[in-house]
């Protein structure tokens, strides 16, 4: 079963004349580590919105883990996202007024499935993950807003991976880090994703990072809407 299969997808934002996504076919195998290269204007955020189920395409199917989420209702899509997908953004991933630990546990409060998969106690699991991600214990109970950007990204990675979601979508998670930390963070992310057994979709405009991944997909090449703009 493919982790992701997109067929004949057309998406246009409301009140816009032209579609910003037009993808005939994209399939990612389960467990793959994919580098999705998306320069700005290639429809990256639109695709993320579609994969997350917060937007619906005008046409086409998006199958995640065998479920066509375009056929689900809004609430079901929200639940699907909570249960099967971990998200990791550029920065400001955390609720600054919650402690690092509480931030990591959050997905387990939104999804019973991830709570179950996190083991007997989500808190213990969160602590285990933070320790594993090398975040000092003295930082766990600090408000997340007081951590450094690098620390925040590690907390965010733990949060995205707690409860072992099948898919991890990372949107430029290293863009706020310096080159050295970028390297370390990507290594950490690949390693943790492997432990969890998730499919990793790593979205970035920075092609230099592509070398770490099994597969590279160029969004502007598969998105016909983007080609029309550039042409």
């Amino acid at each position, binding site marked *: 079963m493919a982790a992701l299969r997109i067929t004949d997808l057309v998406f246009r934002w409301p009140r816009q004349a032209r579609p910003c996504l037009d993808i005939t076919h994209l399939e990612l195998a389960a467990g793959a580590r994919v580098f999705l290269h998306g320069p700005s204007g290639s429809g990256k*955020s639109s695709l*993320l919105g579609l994969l*997350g189920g*917060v937007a619906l395409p005008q046409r086409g199917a998006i199958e995640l883990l065998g479920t066509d989420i375009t056929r689900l209702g809004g*609430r079901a899509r929200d639940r699907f996202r909570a*249960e099967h997908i971990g998200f990791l953004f550029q920065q400001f991933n955390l*609720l600054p007024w919650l402690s690092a630990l509480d931030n990591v546990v*959050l997905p387990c409060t*939104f*999804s019973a499935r991830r709570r179950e998969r996190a083991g007997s106690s989500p808190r213990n699991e969160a602590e285990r993950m933070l320790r594993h991600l090398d975040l000092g214990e003295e930082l766990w109970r600090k408000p997340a807003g007081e951590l450094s950007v690098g620390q925040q990204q590690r907390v965010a990675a733990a949060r995205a991976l707690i409860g072992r979601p099948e898919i991890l979508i990372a949107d430029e998670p290293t863009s706020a880090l310096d080159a050295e930390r970028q390297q370390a963070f990507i290594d950490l992310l690949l390693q943790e994703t492997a432990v969890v057994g998730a499919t990793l979709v790593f979205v970035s405009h920075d092609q230099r990072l592509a070398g770490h991944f099994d597969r590279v997909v160029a969004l502007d090449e598969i998105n016909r809407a983007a080609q029309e703009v550039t042409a």
Partner: protein
Amino acid sequence: MTAVLRLAALSAWSRRLTLGLSLIAIALAVTLLLAVERIRGDARQNFAQSVSGVDLVVGARGGSVQLMLYAVFHAGAASNNISWDSYRAIATHPAVDWALPLSLGDSHRGFAVLGTVPEYFQRFRHGDGEALRFREGRAFGGVFEVVLGSEVVQRLGYRLGDSITLSHGMSELGPAHGDKPFRVVGILAATGTPVDRTLHVGLEAISALHLDWVGGAPLPGVNIPSELVTKFDLKPKEITAALVGLKQRGDVFRMQRFVNQYRGEPLLGVMPGVALDELWQTIGIVERSLLAVSALVVLVGLAGLAATLLAGLNERRRELAILRALGAGPGEIFLMLTAEGLLVTILGALLGLLLLGAGSGLAAPWLLERFGVVLATRLPGNEELALIGAVILTGLVASLVPGWRAWRRSLADGLTPRL
């Protein structure tokens, strides 16, 4: 859903400073609203209880409101007096149980002086039929003896045995009756009625004060000293008004007709309940305006809350996007914002209620002293609960606006707010 509400509470706590200011604004507005409502209710009740058990108030013909004002509240002046003969005719009417003559027109440092009979202290009723009580001393007996209301004592600090002089007319600057001092022989307990602001003397005292007066001014060259006044006939020739109690209340219309059709001179008899209602109608516009203004203040407070929430929404786009990514639906985002506004409104209303309780405890003595308003400390009544309910409901409506905005925005932003 409980997870979202818990997060809403935590998020609100992280913005406690701005929300706290909104909360305080709402609390103060609610305090104002409830205080106005309470004072309004209490003032109305005090007003209605200023006289009790009197079936008719009789005075010279004129407006019934004016008659009530001078006869019961000792405010304003009578256009005419009524003759002693007319008073006797009414007092001896077979339907009449008792009648109290009232003679007004003099004052002491802004407080009205009431000339009456000693029986007044037994007959007069206020509130739910409560009689007057002497805190100290006794009723006046001699001509130059005076009984003080509690507020007069409180404000001017008199004690039993003190000697005071009266002024002619209600002005403090009017010509004085300085040649005939009075001795304080009694002090009444507080009633929350105009009695508290009144000095009581005998009718003879009023006559004695004016023996050497003609047409509202002292006769030049004539001065009758206090020791000699008893040599004169002190039987009153005129009084200002009379309070009348009937043997049977059912006779009140018959008696009123008798008074209004009295042949000796034009008289007016009014039923206090009816006239007080009429008087309250006039004052009612003021109290309703006050209530409307405080309702507006509450609206301003709630609008401020909605504005605060709306303004904060921009800074919270990331927060909302994170919650969306974690699985929160647009409905839950809506719920979160609305719940926050509602929570602040409810806490504000409760704090306002608390402030009112504390404030009325502290302010009650001052209000009674300064304005004669009795403010009772008590649990909120039905009207007050209804007002609080209306405030919370309005707060909910106001909170729907930021809730709706957040819902719209979370749909447009998706997982990646463009900042």
